């Protein structure tokens, strides 16, 4: 219960950070980052996380069953509007890892992508 409450608080903060116009977000240790998904963008589209720290990406799609595909982590998910879809990972190697929407969603689909940046602690 306490963990849920903690995650909820962090999620609210992260959601505020992910407001439209803010292009990058940084994860706190053991945190949740909210990502808004809509045609044809992830907001934020650059997500900074820390090597060795578990992080949950909480996606909310507003308009379509977009896809989230992060091949280097063998993670993908369908992002169904009206619900939050969470994926959790613990990155072990610094670097820039591309992710993309892999459900064809319309005219701007080919450019709907982002990058997960894994930083040293």
């Amino acid at each position, binding site marked *: 219960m306490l963990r849920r409450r903690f995650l909820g608080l962090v999620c609210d903060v992260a959601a505020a950070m992910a407001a439209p116009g803010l292009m990058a977000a940084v994860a706190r240790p053991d945190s949740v980052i909210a990502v808004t998904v809509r045609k044809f963008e992830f907001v934020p589209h650059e997500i900074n996380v820390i090597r060795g720290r578990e992080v949950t990406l909480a996606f909310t799609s507003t308009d379509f069953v977009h896809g989230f*595909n992060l091949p280097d982590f063998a993670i993908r998910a369908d992002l169904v509007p009206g619900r939050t879809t969470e994926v959790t990972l613990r990155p072990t190697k610094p670097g820039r890892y*591309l992710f993309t929407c892999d459900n064809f969603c319309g*005219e701007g689909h080919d450019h709907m992508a982002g990058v997960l940046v894994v930083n040293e602690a």
Partner: protein
Amino acid sequence: MNELDRREFLKLAGVGGVVFASGLAGCASYGTAGAPRDFHFLQLSDIHWGYDNASVNPDFKGTLPKAIAAVNSLSQKPDFVVFTGDLTQTTDDAKLRRARLKEFRDIAAGLSVPKIYYFAGEHDAALDRGEAYQEFFGETLRYTFDHKGVHFIVLDNTSDPAPILGAQQIAWLKADLEKLRPDQPIVVLTHRPLFALYPQWDWSTRDGQEAIDALMPFKNVTVFYGHIHHEHRHATAHIEHYASRSLMFPLAPVGTADKKTQVPWNAAAPYKGLGYRDIDWRASAAPGITDLPAGKA
């Protein structure tokens, strides 16, 4: 026609191009499609009719007609032409989608060849599961045909928003393959790569490995696809996979750009990277593959 004859023919035809040979093993026997015979066909791909970014292709309305004129000028006609998807540029406007499909169909009808095969790309079919596409091109999302001893299989990995074949189509494929002998020459035509070329740029088919696994027992299989808008060759064991150019805009290969990038028009080398493909199928040797330019300045 041997390779030297072919090059001479292309030179005479005035189209020129980059020639490379495939590593496909030849076949000496045949299966249910009859005795293999030599022939050639053309692959035209990724037309994206309706695309209008002049900085990438200022001749966006002229490139396809130029390619059709070049094909029609060939002194030796291909047995057939196959369009391997993305006939049109996608649009969220269903009425405009139909207008583009109709316009493309009418222009392609100007090809003076014995037969034209079509199938869809995601730009044509993903947003409405192929409904509009099939109004103009019939039930041609997936199908098979036989030609001079070769069994052709068209696989649909684009009419679902997800880049998948789907369990039903995999079962359909397996049922079709069950009828064939292991030495039956097979050509698979599809839009997206069946293998995971670069999923980071959506260059893959999520369940494509299942199709590759089903094809693996057959010793003479070649896959031709589009989607990535440049030449590419890859082997999964003995199965060769070839991507062709686009007739609208090139895409930068993996490793040359940090994101999926349309290559801008080069005024010093117009139409560079655009074109279509001649496949010289031989019954007893590897096919000759020739990439031909889309047009001239």
